[in-house]
C-alpha cells in the first residue's frame, strides 16, 4: 500500500521522460482504486478528431486542460496526422496516444508539456557512425485495439532476414539498407508491407480480411489457414448467430466438409450425432473430442430416467443417448468452433482424438469503449413434413377388407368399425398431436470493454422454447458468461479467466406423440369428453376402447440441469522466446431428472389395481484438468522453430443416484419422494476416470514456404488394465506453400496462393465405460429386498487385457487461392484406418451377457474426398456477394476382420462393405396368387431363414453430403442462406404399420395393396388378425424397406437490415439491425416417411423454425 501511494506522489514532481512512458494503464488503475487525485494526471480530455494536424490537437488539449505546450514550429513539421476518439480520458493517456508513432518526445513539466525531437540513442549514433549506409530500425506492432502483438514476424523483404516482436510488441532490426521494405505478419491479421525508416513508431495491423489469414484455433495454440499443415475448418459466431438453434452443434450442419451431423428429434435438448470423417470404431465411441476453451467437455450425458431426448437417433450409427450435453452451452456465448480432422491436427490429443476434435472458443472482451450488445429473437416452429395418411373412408375400407380377407367377422373389440366409435369422424391426428406451433424466444445481452491491459466481457442469456405437442411443455434456459483477460504492464504475465453457467429447465412428456399421430385411426374418439375430462371411450364392458394419446402427456419428464464451465490460463514470458503457461479447467454438470407417471394417465378401469409412480435421478459429472506447458521459439538457419511441451492431468467423476417411488396418496405429490409408500433404489453409479499425458510439438517454418510440424503424446488412462495404461501417439505434417516460390509469384500470377500439405499420424480411442477391465458385482435393487437383504450380482463381463484402439490417419491436401485470393479452393483426401477395434462385442446371451468390451483384430477404413470452395463473386462498396460450397464424398469400409466368419459378427458385417451395411432379405413383391409378401429364399419365400436368406446388402452410409451457402450484402441488407444436402439410403415407412389391424392408420402408400388373385403389387393384402404379421416383418426386414433418403434442405436463411448510421446515432446506438432467420425452411426429398434426417416413425422430426429479431449495440 505504501509503495503504491509512493508511486502516485512521485508523479507530482518533475520527471524524466521514462516515467511518462511507463505503463500508465497500471497507474491509472491504481488511481482509480485508491481514489487518490494526482492533479497532473487527473485532467480529463475529450477529443473527436480524424486526420487532424498534431498542432490543432495540442491546441485543443491546451484549451481543455490549461496545460501549455512548449515546442517549435520546426519540430512539428514532420508529424503524422492524428486520429483519436476519446471521451473524458486521462490527459496522460491521451498524450501517449497522440504522440504514439510521432517522431517526437514529450515531457510534462509542472503545467507545461515540453515537446522535442526524438533523439537517437547513443548506441544508435555509434552504429550509424560506423556504417553510414545502413541503419537500425525500431518499431512497435499493435492490433486495432491498441494491444501490442508479441510474436509478430517482421521480415525484410527479399533477404529472409526476420525477427519476431518481443513481449511488448516491439522490434529492432539492425543494419537495414535504407529503402528496404519490411513485411509484418501475424496470425489473424492482414500482412503489411512498409518502407523502413529509423523509428517506425507504432504499426497497426488490421484484422485479416483474407480468410487465409484468419486465426484458426488448433490444439494448444493457433495458426492460420495459410500456414497450417493440418485439415481444419471453422465456424464463427456470426454464422452461429444467424441460426435459431439452441444447440451450437446444430449450427455446424452442412457447413464443414467431413462433418456429418444428425439431429435425433425436433425437441429442444435432444441428442445430436456428430461424426468426423466417418465411423472409425465398429462398436462404441465415435464421438469427437470436445474441448471448450481448452477444457475437455463430455460428449455424452450420464444415464438417467428419461430417454425422450435420446431416442430416435438415426444416421451414421446413431446410438441411444440421454440428450445432448451441448444443450447446456449457450450458442451466443461462442466466438468460434474449430473442427480438427486429420492426424496433424489431432494427434497431440492422443488417445482421445481418433474421431477428430471440436474446439469451442467462447467470447472474450476486447479493449475499447464499454459496449453493450443486445440480441432478441422471437420465433415459431413446426414440423417440416406431414406424412400423407389414409382418410376415414379409406381406413374403414381397409378394416372391412382386412376382416373379409381373414374370412372373419367384425368382433366386439373392433371398436373402430363395430359401431362404438363414430365412423363419420375424420381426425387429422398429425395436426392434433404434433401439428402445433412451438414458441421460440432467445434474449442475450452482453457488456464488454476494457483497457489495453485488461479486457472483460459479461453476458447473460435467456432462452425458451416450447413444443409442438398439445400441452404446456417448454425448455427454458438462463445463462451467464464472464471473461476477463489481463496482462502485466510489461506484457510478460498474462491471465485470462472465463466462466459460463447455464441453468436449464426442460419439461417434456415422457414419450413422443409422433407414432400415435401417424397410427391412430382417423375415426378414433375425441380427446376430451364434454365435461373436459379425458375421453377413454369405454365399451359396454367398461373397458376403455383406446388409449387416449393425451394420457401420455400426463406422464411427464423434467430435466433440470446446471452446467458450470470455468477455465483459466496463466502465462509468463521468462524470455522473449520462452513462455511458461498453464491452463486450468473445471466443469461441473449437474442434472436432476424427474419422471412422473400419475394414475390419471392409466385407463380408469385399471386404476384400482395400478399405482402411480415416479423416478428421480441426480446426475453429476465433475471434471478438472491442469495442463502446464512450455513454449519456446528460436531461429534455426533461416527458419523459425516453435516448440511446445506440456502435460495433462485430468480427473472426471461421474455420479448417478436414482430413486424410484410408488404408491403415492395423490398424483399431486409425485414430485415428493417422501410421499411414496414404497421407495426403491434405482441406478447408482460412482465412476472415476483419470487421465494423464505428456505432449509436445515442434513446428519449423522456413520462410513461410516449407513448414514441418511434428507432434507426440504419451497417454495414460484409467480405463485400461494395468499392463496397457500407457501408449504413445504422434504425427508428422508438412506443407509447401509453393506460391511463395519465385517461379510462381513471377510467372503464374492468377494463382495467388498455393499450398500442398500432407500428414500422417496415429490417434487413439478410449471411449469405453470406466472399469470395463474389472469384474464388478453390483447390488440388486428390488422393492422388497429378498429375505430382507440386498443381493449382489455380476454386472459385466470383464476383459483385463483391454488396449487402446488405434487410428492411423493419412491425409493429403491441396489448397489454392486464385485471383488475389478471391477464390479459395481447398481439397483434401483422407484415409484413416482404425485397428485393434475396441468395442462391445456382441455375444450370444448364453454367455450370460449380450456383450463384452474387447479388442478385435479388425480394420476399418474411412477414406474420402473433401472439397471446399469459397469465392467472392462481387465486392463493391454497397454490394457484395460471396459463395461457399463444400462437399464430402466419404467411404467407409471394413478392410479386414480375421476370423469374421467364425466370430459373433459373422452375420452383421461383410468384409469390403461399409459398417452401416444392412443384411436384408431380397424383396420379391407380393405373391399374385395369395396376396402375401415374398422374399428370396432357398427354402420358403414366405418364411425365409435368417441369416441364410438375408443376402441383400444395403449400405446406409451417406454417398456424399455437403452444403452450399451464399452471403449477399446490399446497402443495409444482408442475406445469407445455406442449402444442406445428403445423398443416402435409409429405412422407410413404405409398408406402413401392420395394415388392416385395429386402430392403426397407415400411410397412403398401402392403398396399392393386393386385392384379388392376379394383382401385381408391392403391398400385401390387408389383414386384421395378425395372421400375416410374420410376412409383414419379412418385408420390413427386406431391401424394400430401405430406399432413397436423400434430401436437399434449405437449412438456414438469414435476412437482416442494418439501420442507417444517422438514424442510429440519433438514438445513441452504435449498431442496430433487425433480422429474419429461418431453419429447415424447405426440404426437397423423395423419402417415404416423416423426415429423411432422423428417419424415424417414432421421434419428432426436426422442426422448421422462423424467427424475427433485433440486435442492437450501444
Amino acid at each position, binding site marked *: 500500500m505504501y509503495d503504491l501511494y509512493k508511486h502516485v506522489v512521485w508523479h507530482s514532481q518533475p520527471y524524466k521522460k521514462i516515467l511518462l512512458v*511507463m505503463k500508465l494503464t497500471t497507474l491509472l488503475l491504481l488511481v482509480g482504486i485508491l481514489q487518490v487525485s494526482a492533479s497532473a494526471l487527473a485532467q480529463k480530455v475529450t477529443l473527436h478528431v480524424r486526420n487532424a494536424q498534431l498542432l490543432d490537437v495540442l491546441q485543443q488539449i491546451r484549451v481543455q486542460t490549461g496545460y501549455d505546450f512548449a515546442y517549435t514550429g520546426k519540430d512539428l513539421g514532420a508529424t503524422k496526422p492524428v486520429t483519436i476518439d476519446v471521451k473524458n480520458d486521462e490527459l496522460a493517456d491521451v498524450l501517449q496516444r497522440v504522440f504514439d508513432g510521432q517522431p517526437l518526445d514529450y515531457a510534462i513539466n509542472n503545467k507545461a508539456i515540453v515537446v522535442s525531437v526524438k533523439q537517437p540513442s547513443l548506441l544508435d549514433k555509434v552504429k550509424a557512425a560506423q556504417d553510414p549506409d545502413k541503419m537500425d530500425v525500431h518499431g512497435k506492432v499493435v492490433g486495432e485495439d491498441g494491444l501490442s502483438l508479441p510474436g509478430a514476424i517482421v521480415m525484410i523483404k527479399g533477404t529472409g532476414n526476420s525477427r519476431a516482436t518481443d513481449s511488448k510488441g516491439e522490434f529492432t532490426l539492425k543494419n537495414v539498407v535504407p529503402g528496404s521494405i519490411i513485411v509484418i505478419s501475424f496470425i489473424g491479421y492482414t500482412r503489411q508491407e512498409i518502407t523502413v525508416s529509423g523509428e517506425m513508431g507504432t504499426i497497426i495491423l488490421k484484422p485479416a480480411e483474407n480468410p487465409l489469414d484468419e486465426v484458426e484455433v488448433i490444439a494448444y495454440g493457433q495458426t492460420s489457414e495459410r500456414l497450417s499443415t493440418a485439415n481444419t475448418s471453422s465456424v464463427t459466431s456470426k454464422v452461429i448467430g444467424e441460426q435459431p438453434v439452441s444447440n451450437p452443434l446444430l449450427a455446424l450442419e452442412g457447413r464443414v466438409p467431413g462433418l456429418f451431423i444428425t439431429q435425433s428429434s425436433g425437441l429442444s435438448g435432444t441428442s445430436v450425432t456428430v461424426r468426423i470423417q466417418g465411423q472409425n470404431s465398429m462398436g462404441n465411441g465415435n464421438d469427437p473430442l470436445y474441448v471448450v476453451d481448452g477444457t475437455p467437455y463430455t460428449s455424452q450425458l450420464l444415464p438417467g430416467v428419461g430417454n425422450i431426448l435420446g431416442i430416435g437417433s438415426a444416421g451414421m450409427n446413431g446410438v441411444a443417448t440421454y440428450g445432448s450435453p451441448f444443450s447446456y452451452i449457450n450458442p451466443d456465448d461462442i466466438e468460434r468452433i474449430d473442427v480438427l480432422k486429420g492426424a496433424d491436427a489431432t494427434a497431440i490429443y492422443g488417445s482421445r482424438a481418433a474421431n477428430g476434435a471440436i474446439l469451442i472458443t467462447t467470447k472474450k472482451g476486447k479493449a475499447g469503449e464499454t459496449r453493450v450488445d443486445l440480441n432478441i429473437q422471437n420465433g415459431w416452429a413446426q414440423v417440416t413434413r406431414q406424412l400423407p395418411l389414409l382418410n376415414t373412408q379409406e381406413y374403414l375400407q381397409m378394416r372391412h377388407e382386412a376382416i373379409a380377407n381373414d374370412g372373419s367377422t367384425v*368382433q366386439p*373389440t373392433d371398436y373402430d368399425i363395430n359401431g362404438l366409435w363414430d365412423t363419420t369422424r375424420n381426425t387429422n391426428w398429425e395436426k392434433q398431436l404434433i401439428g402445433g406451433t412451438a414458441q421460440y424466444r432467445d434474449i442475450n445481452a452482453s457488456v464488454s470493454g476494457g483497457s489495453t491491459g485488461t479486457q472483460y466481457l459479461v453476458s447473460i442469456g435467456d432462452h425458451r422454447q416450447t413444443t409442438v405437442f398439445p400441452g404446456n411443455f417448454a425448455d427454458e434456459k438462463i445463462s451467464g458468461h464472464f471473461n476477463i483477460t489481463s496482462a502485466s*504492464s510489461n506484457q510478460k504475465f498474462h491471465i485470462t479467466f472465463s466462466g459460463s453457467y447455464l441453468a436449464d429447465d426442460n419439461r417434456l412428456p415422457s414419450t413422443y406423440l409422433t407414432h400415435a399421430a401417424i397410427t391412430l385411426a382417423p375415426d378414433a374418439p375425441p380427446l376430451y369428453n364434454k365435461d373436459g375430462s379425458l375421453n377413454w371411450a369405454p365399451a359396454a*364392458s*367398461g*373397458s376403455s376402447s383406446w388409449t387416449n394419446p393425451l394420457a401420455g402427456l400426463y406422464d411427464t419428464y423434467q430435466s433440470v440441469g446446471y452446467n458450470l464451465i470455468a477455465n483459466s490460463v496463466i502465462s509468463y514470458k*521468462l*524470455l522473449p522466446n520462452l513462455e*511458461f503457461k498453464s491452463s486450468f479447467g473445471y466443469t461441473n454438470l449437474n442434472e436432476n431428472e424427474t419422471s412422473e407417471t400419475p394414475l390419471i394417465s392409466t385407463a380408469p*378401469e*385399471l386404476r384400482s*389395481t395400478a399405482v402411480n409412480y415416479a423416478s428421480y435421478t441426480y446426475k453429476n459429472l465433475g471434471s478438472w484438468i491442469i495442463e502446464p506447458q*512450455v513454449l519456446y521459439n528460436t531461429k534455426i538457419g533461416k527458419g523459425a522453430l516453435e516448440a511446445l511441451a506440456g*502435460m495433462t492431468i485430468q480427473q472426471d467423476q461421474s455420479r448417478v443416484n436414482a430413486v424410484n417411488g*410408488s*404408491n403415492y396418496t395423490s398424483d399431486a405429490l409425485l414430485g415428493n419422494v417422501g410421499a411414496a*409408500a*414404497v421407495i426403491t433404489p434405482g441406478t*447408482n453409479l*460412482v*465412476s*472415476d*476416470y483419470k*487421465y*494423464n499425458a505428456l505432449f509436445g510439438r515442434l513446428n519449423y517454418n522456413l520462410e513461410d514456404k516449407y513448414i514441418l510440424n511434428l507432434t507426440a503424446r504419451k497417454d*495414460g488412462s484409467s480405463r485400461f488394465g494395468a499392463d496397457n*495404461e*500407457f501408449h504413445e501417439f504422434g504425427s508428422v505434417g508438412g506443407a509447401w506453400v509453393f506460391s511463395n516460390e519465385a517461379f510462381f509469384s513471377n510467372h503464374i500470377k492468377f494463382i495467388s496462393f498455393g499450398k500442398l500439405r500432407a500428414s500422417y499420424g496415429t490417434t487413439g480411442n478410449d471411449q469405453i465405460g470406466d*472399469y470395463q477391465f*474389472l*469384474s*464388478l*458385482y*453390483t*447390488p*440388486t435393487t*428390488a*422393492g*422388497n*429386498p*429378498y*429375505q*430382507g*437383504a440386498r443381493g*449382489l*450380482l455380476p*454386472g459385466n463381463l470383464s476383459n483385463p487385457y483391454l488396449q487402446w484402439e488405434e487410428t492411423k490417419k493419412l491425409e493429403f491436401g491441396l489448397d489454392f487461392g486464385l485471383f488475389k485470393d478471391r477464390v479459395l479452393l481447398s481439397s483434401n483426401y483422407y484415409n484413416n484406418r482404425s485397428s485393434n477395434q475396441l468395442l462391445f462385442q*456382441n455375444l*450370444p*446371451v*448364453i*454367455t*450370460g451377457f449380450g456383450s463384452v468390451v474387447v479388442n478385435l483384430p479388425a480394420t476399418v477404413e474411412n477414406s474420402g474426398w473433401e472439397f471446399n470452395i469459397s469465392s467472392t463473386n462481387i465486392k463493391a462498396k454497397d454490394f457484395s456477394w460471396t459463395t461457399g460450397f463444400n462437399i464430402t464424398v466419404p467411404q467407409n469400409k471394413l478392410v479386414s476382420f480375421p476370423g469374421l466368419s467364425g466370430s*459373433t459378427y459373422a*452375420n452383421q458385417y461383410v468384409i469390403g462393405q461399409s459398417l452401416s451395411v444392412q443384411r436384408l432379405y431380397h424383396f420379391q413383391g407380393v405373391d399374385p396368387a395369395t396376396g402375401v409378401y415374398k422374399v428370396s429364399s432357398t427354402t420358403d419365400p414366405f418364411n425365409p431363414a435368417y*441369416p441364410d436368406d438375408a443376402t441383400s446388402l444395403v449400405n446406409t452410409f451417406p454417398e456424399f453430403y455437403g452444403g452450399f451457402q451464399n452471403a449477399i450484402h446490399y446497402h443495409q441488407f444482408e442475406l445469407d442462406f445455406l442449402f444442406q444436402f445428403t445423398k443416402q439410403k435409409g429405412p422407410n415407412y413404405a409398408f406402413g404399420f401392420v395394415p388392416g389391424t385395429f386402430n392403426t392408420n397407415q400411410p397412403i402408400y398401402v392403398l396399392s395393396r393386393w386385392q384379388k388373385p392376379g394383382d401385381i403389387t408391392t403391398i400385401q393384402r390387408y389383414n386384421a388378425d*395378425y395372421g400375416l*404379421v410374420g410376412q409383414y*416383418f419379412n418385408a420390413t426386414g427386406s431391401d424394400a424397406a430401405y430406399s432413397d433418403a436423400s434430401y436437399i434442405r434449405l437449412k438456414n436463411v438469414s435476412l437482416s437490415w442494418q439501420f442507417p448510421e444517422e438514424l442510429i446515432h440519433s438514438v445513441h446506438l452504435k449498431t442496430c439491425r433487425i433480422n429474419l432467420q429461418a431453419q429447415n425452411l424447405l426440404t426437397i426429398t423423395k423419402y417415404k416417411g416423416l423426415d429423411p434426417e432422423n428417419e424415424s416413425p417414432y421421434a419428432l422430426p426436426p422442426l422448421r423454425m422462423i424467427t424475427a429479431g433485433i440486435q442492437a449495440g450501444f
Partner: protein
Amino acid sequence: MNCNIKYNKSSSNCWMSTLIIFSILLFNSSCKKLVETGPQSTSVNADNVYTNDATAAAVLNGIYTTMSQEAFSDFTGPTAVPLYTGLSSDELTLYSGVYDPRFRAYYLNALQANNAGFEFWNSAYPIIYDANAAIEGLAASNALTSAVKQQLTGEAKMVRAFFYFYLVNLYGDVPLVLNTNYKANATLARTPKAMVYKQIISDLQDAVSTLSTTYVGADALTATTERTRPTKWAAAALLARVYLFYGNLSGDASNYVNAEQQATSIINNSAGYNLVTDLNGVFLANSNEAIWQLQPVIANINTQDAQVFILPETGPSSSTANPVYLSNYLLNSFENGDLRKVDWVSSIKVSDTTYFYPSKYKIKTVGAPLTEYLMMLRLGEQFLIRAEARVQQSNLSGAQSDLNAIRARAGLANTTANDRQSLLAAILRERRVELFTEWGHRWLDLKRTGTVGTVMSVVTPQKGGTWNISAQLYPLPLTDLRSDPALVQNPGY
C-alpha cells in the same frame, strides 16, 4: 519492474530448470497414480465378493431377486412360463381383443423366430451365468465358513439345474454352459438333451448331498421359517421330477426307481411337509406344502401371477395387463365336485360372457402386505410324480394310493383306474387339474408323454391356427443365432 537484464536472465534460467525438473519428477513419480482409480464405491470387485460369508451369500440372494423380479411387462420372469406355455397348450384362451402379435403367435402355435419364443432363453442364461460365477467363486475361495460355502454351492447348483430343466423342455437341445469363460461359451453348439439331463441330475445330486435340511436365512446359515431358499428337500423334489422326465426321454426304467426314491424322501418328511387340507391355504407364504417358494420382490405387489391372471371387473383386457382366461378344455376336465374348481378357479361376468381365471394366488390388491409367495416346488406334485413312477414300475396299488391322496384333498372319490394305461391317463389328467398354470406343467406333460400332437392337432385349429409338430419347441433367439454361428435353429423356424 526495471530489473537488471543479467539478473533477469539468470533467474529465469534457474526457474526454468526448476520447473522442468519438477515436472519430470512429478510425472515420473506419480504417472501411475494419476491413472489408477480407487475402488468403485457403488460395486464390489469380483475378487472381494467370495472373501466373506455375507457378500458370498448376497450373490445367491441376488439370483433369487432376479428370478422373482423380472417384470411381467418384459415378457420374462416367473409368470412368463405359465402364461406362454398355457397359451401354447390348451390351458388358456387369449382374449379376442389382444392384438399384440407375440401373444397371438404363442396362442396359435405360430411363433416365428423374429417375433417371440425366445423370452425364457434370454432370461435363463444370464441367471445360469450368475450361478456359474458363484460356483466358480465359491470353489476358489478358502475364506468362507464351510457350512456357508457348502450351502451356497448347493443353492447355485440347484438354480442351474432348475433353469436347464426348463431350457431343455422348452427348446430341446441347448448349449450347456457350465463356466464363465465367455470366449469359449460364445461359440458353443447345442448339447443333446440327454447330456443336459445328465448334468441336471449331477447338479441336483450334489445339491441333495450338500444343502441344509432346514431352511436358512439371508446369511445362508441361520435357521428361518421362510421357505425361500432351496434345501436338500427342494433339490430332491426337483430331482424326482427330473428323473421322471428323463425316464420318459431315455426309456431307462432305473430313472423311475430314482424318482420314487427322491419323492418318497420328501413325502416321508412329515415333520416338514404335509398336503394342506384347505386348498385356499396351499399358496400362502411358507405353507406346509411349500418345498421352495420365491418371495415377491417387486414393490407394492404380491405375486405377478395374481396380477396377470386375476381379471378385473371389466374382464380381460386387450392390453397386456390381463390378456388371458381359462380355456374350456381345462374347465371341462374338472370332475364334478372338484374343490379345486371352487377354490382355485374364479370367474367374472362381463356383459353376458363369463370368464374363468386361475385364482391359486388371490392377492392382487396393490400395496397389500406380502402373504403369498410364488410356489416353485410343492408336495402335491411329489405325490403325482411318485404315482407315475410307481406305475412305471408296475406298482399299481402304490400309484393309486398316491393319486388318491391328491384326489381326496380335492374332495374327490378314489380313482377307478386300475391298469397301467388307465392309471397313466388318470395321473396325467390329475396333473392337469392339480398343477394348472403352475410353471407350465401341462405343456411339458403333453410333450414328454408324446401326446402333444394328438391333443394340439385338435385344439390349435379350434383356436384359429394350424398345428405343426415343430411348434412343440420354441425358436431360439435370432440374436444368439447371429452371434453364435454354431447354433442351429429348431426345425420349422
